[in-house]
């Protein structure tokens, strides 16, 4: 699953950059995804490599968007990278423990929720990318503030529960 997701990420990033005519971006995407996968071979850096790979993939997606690559393709690439990171971390969690019981139950659960969350995320992001609205400065400010406060409230509530 990890390799499949990484290939999809690479393919989408490369497609986005190719459509925008940024061949350097294609090469960078190929380099980043290959390094991401190769890095996982070194046990001591596994966790860090998974995170760095995700950051790099998102950075490339943002760069692609800024270079006028199709936004939907780049959002899909970012979602595939997120899924890849999720599966990597799941595999690392399994590998870090000497004994894992009911592997198939846990794998099924993880797969189901990761795919569902990614699919919903991709659908909402696609919708957001397609919808065009004019923002005033105040609108931008207050939307940003609202989102930040909302997330803080959610996290705060959860911490309060704990």
């Amino acid at each position, binding site marked *: 699953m990890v390799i499949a997701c990484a290939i999809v990420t690479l393919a989408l990033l490369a497609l986005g950059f190719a459509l925008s005519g940024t061949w350097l971006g294609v090469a960078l995407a190929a380099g980043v995804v290959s390094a991401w996968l190769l890095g996982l071979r070194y046990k001591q850096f596994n966790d860090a490599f998974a*995170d760095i790979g995700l*950051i790099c993939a*998102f950075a490339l*997606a*943002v760069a692609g*968007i*800024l270079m006028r690559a199709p*936004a939907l393709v*780049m*959002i899909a690439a*970012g*979602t595939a990278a*997120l899924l890849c990171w*999720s599966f990597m*971390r*799941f595999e690392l*969690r*399994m590998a870090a*423990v*000497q*004994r*894992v*019981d*009911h592997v198939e*139950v*846990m794998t099924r*659960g*993880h797969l*189901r*929720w*990761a795919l*569902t*969350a*990614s699919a*919903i*995320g*991709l659908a*909402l*992001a*696609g919708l*957001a*990318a397609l*919808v*065009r*609205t004019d*923002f005033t400065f105040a609108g*931008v400010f207050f*939307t*940003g503030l609202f*989102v*930040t406060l909302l*997330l803080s409230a*959610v*996290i705060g509530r*959860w*911490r309060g529960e*704990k």
Partner: protein
Amino acid sequence: MITGKAAGLFAGVIVLVLFGLAGLNSAVIALAIPLLVYLAAGFWLRPAPPHLTGSRALSVERAIVGQPVTITLKVTNAGAPIAEVLIEESVPAGFEVIDGETRLLTPLATNETATLEYTIRGTRGLYRFSGVQITASSALGIFSRRSALASDNQLLIQPEAARLRAITIRPPRTRGFAGPIPSRQGGSGVDFLGLREYQMGDRLRWVNWRVTARAMERTTHGVFTNVFEQERLADIGIILDARQTSDLRTSEGALFEYSNRAAAALTESFLDAGNRVGLLIYGSGIDGVFPGYGRMQRDRILRALGRAVAGHHFVFETLRNLPTRFFPAQSQIIFVSPVGSDDPPTLLQLRAQGYAVMVVSPNPIAYEARAFADDYIARSARRIADAERSFNFQQMRRAGIQVVDWDVALPLDAVIHEALARQPASRRPLVINR
């Protein structure tokens, strides 16, 4: 608990949103949505506070050094189902896991039990197993809750006691029960003690016909019978030297472990013979087991030896404060120690007080010499140390103390018997040259 991953994702969302807002780029903000949804899904699936109960069972509560001990840990989920539970058993330092696993990752449904079984082997000591670490996570693994299950168990690893052949001792005073130790009193026994005139009730087979015939030739009367030495049980006090100065440590290990093993072997040997044995551990404090008989006493002493550690206390730096009253008067005392240069006077004093004293001394010089290169300086230093040790031992032997100089590379049984064959337990009273 928010894991680093959740915080990282949250930071990513914030960065993308701020970046998008700064550049007024909706696509960049949209890129944050999959992360946000993933984070929200993780939050929604976060595990409830786990209601877990656990129990740990040890195959034995006491083991000897090197004996495998199997530990079974059961964790039952009495609450809502948990997608991923990481059960981590913390094995105390000093143990080696030789089979099985100490960490388990598993989903746990309601009323389901996860079992963790592993086998360990440890060095001597008293070990306490504390709680079990539990980490409950959601299926996405970005939110988790950590808790500890209280489950306290103790495991005592006793020293390995080598089997010793019967050791010849002759304490001045024995107890009233029949046993293996010559009591210096006439009666029924095996060893010849002397002759006396026949008395009513003496068995005919005790009559010494040769002496009787010789007496008859001279005095025309008198029948003599043999008197045998009664064999009785004895009081034996074992003193284990646990002072820090006696705990010589090299890359091979600690000399105190050999002292401890010797004390265990002597305990086994004397208790097996039916004697009354007590133990005194003299080190950072005074720990001990009052004299007693039998299997229970053996267990008590081995338990005390199992938890014994070498330590330091200013009061017990020398043997001057040795509580001699701990052991019955005129009993046998066995001092297990490397014997420092300040120790002989106290041992001589014990002998003067009427105790029969035996010293079993793991040789610290030979032990330490193995860790050094065999050069001129080391050889010279060893010769000087050996000379001092020999002088101390000679002084003690002259006072009637049995001394066993034990090079720990050799088996204790062979060394004890060789050493005691050359210096039989004295019947003579003590004469100290001042």
